[in-house]
């Protein structure tokens, strides 16, 4: 991790075969958190492995995080994820997988393989905080899950070792929990758009029930007797 004074710079290896997606993510990371991200972009998982393989054991890793697309020719993002986790098992590089397909099976598959997070494309400004939380620098210096003071929106679930618990459960349970959390998160994001409608519906039902009760009392004469009393 480089430091410019107090500011922490996260070095991100971006892997995506789409030139449009690479550029959008690069610009997004540099615009949303100016100076916080240094992005190195490659167009294939093979090139990513070559880049990471240049760093031998014992030397300082030049990458704090890998952000990879899932669907790529020759070597997929999932295969890259497994290879990266196997590269340095003692100090693995955090890997975040992106995909345009919001498939729960794909999400849990990646999380079970050790991915720190799974983001559904297109990447948006609100996803950038998730990247910051998953960087290895934050994982080592903020092991209690503190963010940089910003609260995440309620529909975001950040899944990484630093924020799951102070005493994290065993890795299998953590992965299972993370998988369920991600699936719930994707469901909750879809359901949240119906909340206003649901709220109005409940209000309407309550109003109808109250009206029905009033009519019942009026018809049975209770209302008049109460009025006259």
């Amino acid at each position, binding site marked *: 991790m480089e430091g410019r004074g107090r500011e922490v710079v996260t070095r991100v290896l971006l892997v995506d075969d789409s030139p*449009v997606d690479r550029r*959008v993510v690069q610009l997004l990371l*540099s615009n949303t958190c100016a100076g916080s991200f240094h992005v190195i972009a490659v167009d294939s998982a093979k090139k990513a492995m070559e880049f990471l393989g240049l760093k031998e054991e014992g030397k300082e890793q030049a990458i704090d995080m890998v952000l990879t697309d899932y669907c790529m020719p020759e070597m997929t993002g999932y295969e890259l994820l497994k290879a990266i986790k196997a590269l340095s098992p003692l100090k693995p590089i955090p890997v975040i997988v992106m995909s345009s397909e919001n498939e729960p099976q794909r999400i849990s598959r990646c999380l079970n393989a050790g991915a720190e997070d799974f983001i559904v494309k297109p990447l948006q400004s609100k996803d950038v905080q998730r990247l910051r939380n998953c960087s290895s620098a934050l994982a080592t210096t903020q092991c209690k899950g503190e963010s940089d003071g910003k609260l995440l929106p309620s529909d975001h679930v950040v899944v990484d070792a630093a924020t799951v618990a102070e005493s994290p459960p065993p890795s299998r349970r953590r992965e299972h929990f993370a998988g369920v959390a991600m699936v719930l998160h994707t469901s909750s994001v879809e359901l949240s758009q119906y909340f206003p409608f649901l709220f109005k519906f409940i209000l309407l039902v309550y109003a109808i029930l109250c009206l029905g009760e009033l009519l019942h009392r009026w018809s049975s004469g209770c209302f008049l007797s109460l009025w006259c009393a």
Partner: protein
Amino acid sequence: MAAAALREQLNALLSSMFSQGLVDEQFQQLQMLQDEGGTPGFVAEVVTLFCDDAERIIAEIATLLEQPIVNFDKVDAYVHQLKGSSASVGAQKVKFTCMQFRQLCQEKSRDGCLMALAVVRNDFYDLRNKFQTMLQLEQQILAYDPKQQ
């Protein structure tokens, strides 16, 4: 005065693109990133990249569909890529057309895929023309008001 008229024209164009469903909130977000992040030319760069990439992908798909034996997996892969880049720039209509195209790829229907390709091409060209007009208007506005850079 002329700059104001151009700005009005640009706003009307953008408004129509949104109302026709050509672009969605992702495109709006890219515009906001450009305006708030102080990165001039952000949208122009991404849009230009998208148009070049989409043109290439459509040509590749056309070539694959002309083969005597169509490799529908490869066609699907290209359509998936086009769908992804459309989503990234907010090209909503092209994205939806690609989603329908992928279903035809699953059905392994050459005629269906050819029709879908024609629709994708049509939607893309329509969007590209609008993007080109948008970029021209932005350039003209900048020429009148360099302070916007």
